[in-house]
């Protein structure tokens, strides 16, 4: 044990020595200075830097952007692994063959890996290039975005379309605004929307959701629960339990409510995602569903409200996309409003809009646009309060005021 430990230490210090040795080549004035941001990205990947605090707080919290992002990536793992298995399960169910758990998983893995690889390679290449041009460090935001994009597209998405969508999302959705932290639309949803509007035939209909052949699609594939409801069904043919577990057709990794909920627990437990947003999306969606239940004009409106939670991308959107800290509302009150409206609009779009089966994507993108306005109104209330207090102080005059006591600062 001890020897293994010292060997490990030797390996780590050897790596550190190697990095220190090649560092000058990549630094200002070195031969490969044009790759400085790339080098730094890999260096800080291997070692948390030795920078110390210069001014202000002398000690800092151990959390940084890398840690935050990797926590989200870990939270995505249950949904990703389940999605891989489900791709195989759907495939083998369709072609009628019997298959083991591992066969299903292996099939899904083989279908999923190219999507993930293309997403990361295209996206990171653009990110690195932009970081280099700006002389910035490479931002970690794409670690999450690059994984989410292949998780929310149909498994049959052609790789070249995915590559285009990722490029569009990173450049137009993020970098033109100045990179991570400056964008106002969720980049993963920008990619999804790009695919949806640019290649509608590849993104809708019943055939795209299941990998029937090894490559490409077959016309006999099963419909998604949302597709069935759009087609005028009374209830989705899959049971509530099937949809909760996720053994239904849909985008690669969005079908399993339970896997996504495990991820949600990780996000909330680690304090990375806002519980206010998550909860209010469910409340908003549920409220709209209940309202439709009361109206009950057609079979979709009569669908019990909780079905919406487990159908399509509602759960995935609520947990992983609505909570994106960059594009969501930033005030606590604003977060409630933002989440409620996402839930409301998602169900509204599903039920009354004949064109789009899935309302979650458009609903979140819409509220991304309104998040700054919501925040503005919330902050304006605070500003008005401060102004009123000032006016009151002017009229009462200094020294005359009675100071409050027994105050509880919440």
């Amino acid at each position: 044990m001890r020897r293994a430990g010292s060997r490990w230490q030797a390996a780590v210090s050897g790596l550190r020595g190697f990095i220190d040795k090649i560092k000058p080549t990549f630094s200002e004035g070195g031969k490969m200075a044009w790759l400085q941001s790339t080098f730094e990205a890999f260096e800080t990947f291997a070692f948390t830097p030795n920078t110390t605090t210069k001014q202000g707080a002398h000690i800092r919290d151990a959390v940084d952007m890398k840690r935050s992002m990797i926590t989200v990536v870990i939270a995505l793992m249950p949904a990703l692994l389940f999605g891989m298995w489900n791709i195989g399960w759907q495939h083998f169910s369709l072609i009628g063959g019997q298959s083991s758990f591992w066969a299903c998983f292996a099939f899904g893995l083989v279908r999923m890996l190219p999507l993930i690889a293309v997403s990361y390679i295209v996206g990171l290449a653009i990110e690195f290039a932009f970081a280099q041009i700006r002389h910035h460090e490479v931002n970690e935001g794409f670690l999450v975005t690059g994984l989410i994009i292949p998780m929310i597209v149909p498994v049959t998405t052609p790789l070249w379309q995915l590559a285009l969508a990722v490029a569009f999302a990173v450049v137009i959705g993020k970098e033109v605004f100045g990179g991570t932290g400056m964008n106002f639309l969720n980049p993963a949803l920008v990619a999804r929307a790009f695919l949806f509007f640019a290649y509608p035939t590849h993104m809708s209909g019943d055939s795209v959701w299941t990998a029937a052949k090894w490559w490409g699609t077959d016309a006999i594939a099963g419909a998604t629960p949302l597709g069935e409801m759009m087609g005028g069904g009374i209830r989705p043919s899959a049971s509530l339990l099937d949809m909760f577990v996720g053994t239904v057709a849909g985008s690669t990794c969005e079908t399993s409510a339970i896997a996504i909920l495990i991820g949600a627990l990780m996000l909330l437990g680690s304090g990375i995602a806002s519980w206010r947003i998550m909860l209010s999306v469910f409340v908003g969606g549920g409220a709209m569903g209940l309202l439709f239940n009361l109206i009950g004009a057609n079979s979709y409106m009569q669908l019990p409200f909780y079905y919406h939670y487990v159908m399509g991308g509602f759960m995935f959107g609520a947990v992983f996309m609505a909570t994106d800290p960059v594009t969501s509302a930033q005030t606590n009150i604003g977060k409630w409003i933002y989440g409620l409206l996402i839930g409301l609009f998602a169900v509204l779009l599903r039920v009354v809009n004949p064109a789009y089966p899935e309302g979650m994507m458009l609903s979140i993108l819409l509220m991304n646009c309104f998040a700054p306005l919501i925040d503005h109104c919330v902050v304006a209330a605070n500003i008005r309060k401060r102004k009123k207090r000032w006016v009151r102080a002017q009229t009462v005059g200094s020294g005359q005021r009675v100071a409050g006591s027994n105050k509880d600062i919440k």
Partner: protein
Amino acid sequence: MDGKIKIHKGLDIPIGGAAERRTSDMRLIKTYGIQPSDFVGLTPRLDVREGDLVEVGQAVVCDKNNPKIQLTSPVCGTVKEIRRGERRAIEAVVIEKSEEQKSWHRDPASLQSREGIIEAMIDCGLWTMVRQRPFGTIANPDDNPRDIFISLFDSAPLGPCPNWAVNWQWLAAGLNALSLLTDGKVHVCGREVQSSRFKVQGSENIVFHEVSGPHPAGNIGTQIAAIAPLNKGERVWTMNPQDVVTLGQLVTTGDYRPERLVAVTGPAAAHPQYYRITPGASLGEVLNGQLSSKDYPKLDAANGFGTRIISGNVLSGRKATLDGFLGAYDSQVTLIEEGDSYDFMGWLMPGLRKHSFSRTFLSGLMPKNWFTVHGSRFMINGFGFNFNTNLHGGVRPLVFTGNFERVFPFDIYPTQLIKAAIIGDIDLMEQLGIYEVEPEDLALCEYIDPSKTEIQAIIRKALELCRKESV
């Protein structure tokens, strides 16, 4: 009229090395320094030259903009050196204490009126300990402040709380003197343990508030916000409790005896304890024996490798060197290990000994044992936390929001205020409440920020911008 204030938002950082209840007398220290940079907005003008003899309370430096404001010598001695830094700015006036000491004295009978007290405080230099909000500058003696706020406790990490050593009679005398300086109230905030010992007879304008809750409950800014928030154009004054005691002694006996109990704290301190010193003491002499011999050879006064010496607390203190001096407003020195080493895959490792407000490290799942000392909470867990000055990551744009609000007990939107401060929009900053805060009030936001933004520097710069605009 006494009230209770409960602060819910905040964070007590579980750092080790609290000062033991033991006091050493260090008033024999030879070297003292006056550092004009300790005073916000002061433009120094020298009143002495190297080699001059000075007495206690004799002006050494005064403010060019308001010559009434003068920094005085805390001891009798000789001006040994005028230390200058970049662009010949005065870094410190170094005074060597002489064998014979005289005290500054005035007839106590002349110290019973507003004018008398202010005149004496200015003359002996105690006035520089009175600071105004907003901006944190030395108070202007011609102002009539809305209120005066005194915080009897320090909730910052390892903040000193020498209740047993406080002369409560002089404290009461000092508060009574302060109540003459304002038409408003003197608000005194203390912990529950202090409320029983706090008895002031005399002025009805002195109000005691019992404050509970985590840091920043002890910050003046938090207390002002909870009691009567500051409006644009209003001014309040504040003083550290030990200086109120000095003031009490001054008005009672007529003697000015600047003295301070200073806590040497921190995980890198060999014997965390209290010292009785004269303000402005040389840190090298105060810290004699505190830095273990293992670190001493590594200690380079110029860059402080090995151990970082902080005058003040770890959140908002000033980085100092062994040839420097205790900060004018500080009653704490913190010693902490420099974190200038690499951490292999630090972003991925479980992190049993890393402290984080978020629960992204395994340390966040460990059982916690809290205990209370002098009303401040401390925590130990099975592994202990390893604190050093490492930044723990790279600087990024402000991304994660919603966390600042959890450690910032003001009716202010911190994220929006910080953004307004970055772009330097004075109108917007005023609307969002910049006058209600000092950089130290946002120190916890800076601590927990995963983007590693230097929030306190941003707020200081913004406040300076507003101050220059308002003159």
